């Protein structure tokens, strides 16, 4: 799986470098851009029919599926690290000169990125559902219902944890849901009836 992710990172490194610099400089807006670019690059890979190259290689279907959810996550993840690092440095400098921390503290950035990662993975799950159902209404409906259910659980979790806990618990809960979505996406990918269309 890492081999495939590494290949995608190497193939798009110029774009990624620019995106990560933007993420560091623009903080939350930069993270949104990172998430969008992550999905756009995955879409670009699909346009080049990369699955037709990867699937016949000696890698499992699950590894290919996992690389597809990990790659955009890494794009956002590295952007987050760059952004959090710069935010942390800025805060430290400001505290050092006695001006107090900025609103975009490192923790604030990480919390925002966690939420964004959830939305990113939700988008990938929906994309996989779209492919998996092959446009068949009933399955699409069921898939849609599953997404609504997941969104409902996520929202309720957020509300419940926010009422009784801290931002940390909200972030951890969201991270858990994100992992669940990644698992669902990979599972749907493994069960695709065909990898030759689109």
């Amino acid at each position, binding site marked *: 799986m890492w081999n495939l992710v590494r*290949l995608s990172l190497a*193939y798009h490194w110029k774009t990624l470098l620019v995106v990560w610099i933007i993420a560091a400089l623009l903080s939350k807006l930069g993270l949104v851009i990172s998430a969008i670019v992550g999905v756009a690059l995955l879409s670009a890979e699909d346009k080049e029919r990369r*699955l037709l*190259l990867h*699937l*016949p*290689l*000696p890698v499992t279907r*699950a590894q290919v599926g996992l690389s597809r959810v990990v790659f955009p996550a890494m794009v956002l993840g590295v952007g987050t690290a760059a952004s959090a690092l710069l935010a942390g440095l800025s805060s430290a400098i400001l505290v050092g000169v006695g001006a107090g921390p900025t609103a975009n503290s490192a923790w604030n950035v990480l919390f925002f990125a966690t939420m964004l990662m959830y939305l990113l993975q939700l988008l990938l799950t929906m994309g996989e559902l779209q492919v998996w159902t092959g446009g068949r209404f009933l399955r699409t409906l069921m898939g849609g219902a599953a997404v609504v259910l997941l969104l409902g659980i996520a929202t309720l979790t957020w509300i419940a944890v926010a009422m009784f806990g801290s931002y940390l618990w909200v972030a951890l809960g969201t991270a858990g849901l994100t992992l669940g979505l990644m698992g669902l996406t990979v599972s749907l990918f493994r069960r695709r009836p065909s990898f*030759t269309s689109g």
Partner: protein
Amino acid sequence: MSFDGLAISLRGLEKRYPGFALGPVDLAIEPGTVVGLVGPNGAGKTTTLNCIGGLVAPDAGTVEIYGRPNRPDDTTWKHDVGYVGEEHGFYGRWTAEKNLRVIGGLHRTWSDQRVRRMIERFELPPATRAMDLSKGNRTKLALIAALGHSPRLLLLDEPTSGLDPLVRNEVLDVLWEILEDGEAAILYSTHVLSDISRLADELVFLRQGQNLLRSEKEALSESWRRISFRLDADAATLAGTVDHKRVGIEHQVISSDQESTLQQLNELGAENIEESRMTIDEIAVEILRGKDHVESR
């Protein structure tokens, strides 16, 4: 039939799409055999190959490669397989050489030396970006990528489709040279019958998702004949005939069993019997047309 030690064994393979159903297809291919999968567009050739190559999940049936099921989460069977489809998914902005390098990095039996030899033999420009390669060169790149790890089974899905005749011949020449040295079994799908005539030992005919016939190429050449004769009688039901044309007492038939047809013609007292061999292309056309086109004038 024993399925042990076979390069490919398909048992009851089925796949359904809206408006199309493949199978059930049973097929066993011995190691070292070149089998041509012949059929018109929509016959199920690509679907069959994609099911074997793991790009399409069958609705029913099993696929085994050298005795191992082609399970999606097992990679052992993939080491034995080289696959060339109509589309290849190369990293477009990377050179041909870099594409081969990254593919080779994932194969444990990859041979750089073998790949270099094939690049030279195919005259592939290694420093050209994959996206800038001509269709012919992209096909060559795909063949090298599929052969670099010396697979024991090569799946070729219309590899020369869309190539001009010169490039197609060039690709086939080199492919033939490479394959001559090896022990690989090959399943080659095409509707360009002349390709198959050159490469295949056996032919499998598919039409509308059904396996019509499997035969050795030589056996087809030996048994099929175009026979003309004079006979003042109806000859539409002659043994072995798949096509019959009649003008007065002049008849022309196509027979899939020349011995039976000639024997019956002699018994009927037919005169001026002349037989001529048919090319594999002509035979394939007759097989794919089916036995429902006997006509009389």
